[in-house]
């Protein structure tokens, strides 16, 4: 025993030095990713920001100057402000709906005791993800359109005479977006809920709490980080959605991503598109920060009480 320790003490510095040398060598492996992100992520986004303050394309128009007119144009036009507002509204409602539907399922998945049950639930959640956004939007179009599955069934049952207006509006957009993003919420939440020790809930119950109380007072607060992460993910995805608002929203819905693509494809105004991109980026960053603050406050209170 004593010789063991002595050996370790004398061997330690050499081992540490070798380890440090290896760590330095391993550090070089960061370069491929760093180069990829520099040239295909950071630099392009920087250029996007710069472009939004320029009057034109600096490569083929030498008389380019710095201007705020793209932002002025955005904030002085009700059409654009409405689009911003609609994007946020769709993002928030979709996130809340996905959380409401995703939490029970994530809870069931995290608490599934049989391996088969867990695997089946996992497949049920992954299968829609494999199906793709365009295909799932198609599925909702066949369900919600005037001659779609739901309206045909309702009319056959005599519930309604005229088809209900279920799509080509914000409602249809949100329903389809929720369906598309629930799996992301479930997968994020299931990991976090799974790490909440079930014995804590059992302890609360043995102290007289009902199952619902034990959940509300123990598991729910402890899963707040998962709620935060899942909500941010779904929000970022849904304010960035293009296909679903375009196809499900019809002429009723106009969102920032739709405006951005319009500027690139038909108006050929990459500078204004850049300004729209900067606004979308600012909005998502602001929401991330605000959400973080709110939840930090919430968990602080929980900790005190």
């Amino acid at each position, binding site marked *: 025993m004593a010789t063991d320790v002595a050996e370790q003490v004398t061997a330690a510095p050499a081992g540490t030095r070798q380890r440090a040398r290896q760590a330095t060598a391993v550090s070089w492996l960061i370069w491929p990713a760093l180069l990829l992100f520099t040239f295909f992520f950071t630099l392009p986004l920087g250029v996007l920001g710069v472009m939004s303050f320029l009057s034109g394309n600096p490569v083929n128009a030498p008389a380019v100057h710095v201007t705020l007119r793209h932002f002025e144009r955005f904030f002085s036009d009700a059409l654009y402000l409405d689009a911003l507002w609609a994007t946020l509204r769709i993002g928030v409602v979709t996130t809340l709906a996905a959380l409401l539907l995703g939490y029970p399922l994530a809870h069931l998945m995290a608490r599934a005791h049989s391996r088969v049950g867990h695997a089946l639930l996992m497949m049920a959640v992954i299968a829609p993800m494999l199906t793709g956004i365009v295909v799932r939007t*198609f599925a909702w179009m066949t369900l919600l359109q005037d001659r779609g599955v739901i309206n045909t069934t309702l009319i056959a049952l005599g519930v309604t005479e005229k088809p209900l207006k279920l799509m080509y509006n914000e409602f249809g957009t949100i329903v389809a977006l929720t369906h598309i993003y629930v799996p992301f919420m479930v997968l994020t939440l299931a990991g976090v809920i799974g790490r909440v020790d079930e014995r804590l809930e059992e302890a609360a119950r043995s102290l007289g709490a009902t199952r619902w109380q034990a959940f509300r007072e123990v598991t729910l607060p402890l899963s707040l980080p998962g709620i935060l992460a899942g909500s941010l993910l779904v929000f970022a995805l849904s304010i960035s959605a293009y296909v679903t608002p375009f196809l499900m929203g019809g002429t009723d819905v106009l969102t920032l991503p739709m405006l951005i693509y319009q500027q690139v494809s038909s108006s050929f105004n990459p500078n204004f598109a850049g300004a729209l991109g900067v606004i*979308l980026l600012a909005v998502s960053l602001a929401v991330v920060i605000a959400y973080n603050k709110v939840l930090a406050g919430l968990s602080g209170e929980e900790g005190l009480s």
Partner: protein
Amino acid sequence: MRPKLGLGRIAYLSVNGAILFFLLSPIAIVSVFAVNPTPYISFPPVGFTLAWFAKFFANPDFINALWLSLKVAAAVLVLSMLIGATAALALARGNLPGARLATALFMSPLMLPAILTGLALFQIYLLAGIGRPIWGLVMGHTVVAVPYVIRTTLAVLHNFDRRLEEAAAALGANPVRVFLEVTLPLIRPGVIAGGIFAFIVSFDQFPVSLFLVVPKGETLPVVLFNYMKFDLDGAIAAASMVSIALALTVVILLEWIIGLRAYLKL
């Protein structure tokens, strides 16, 4: 402790049943329309036909797009596994001063609206005058796919016992051999899981592709989207079934070829 089947438990299970129904029934519906013979989408189904599949496979636009999507996704799979695994190793095992910052940077495509990545790449390709080449599309997809590989690989690296590597080194293996025979087999499940995600992300990628594809050189999701703007018939349903089947096949193949072997070695 198995929960008793009380009223609360019944409510809990039926809520979850309803959510699962909401998740899965739209996909089941697509398979119904893929074989329903009416010329437009109508319900209930009136028969069985494979004509929509025939229409899909006879349409060169669909087939070319399918090939392009598969090629791009395969390239993204390889690139993101290489770049993601090396980056995760450097982040977990290196002594980089800004490791936390670098991790945040590499994860940011997950939080940033993907349409911005597409727009930004479109603009820089435009300014650089390189047009919209396929490799540009592949790089765009790789940027949004790499975070998945880094995340899954980091998770594995944080969980595994470093003493295994130290033991191998103490027994005389040189660092390269330690890496090849200990580290690599141990992180392989993480890299593969991330790679499968990367493949799916690329195969299903829309917002980045939208800006970076050229006419007649579009990926399958973009072609399907353009078709759906004007036509809503069974061909889309058939295309959906084909792309679901392909994605599933690739996932199962990958798992079977590389995954199972890796798990057996553990």
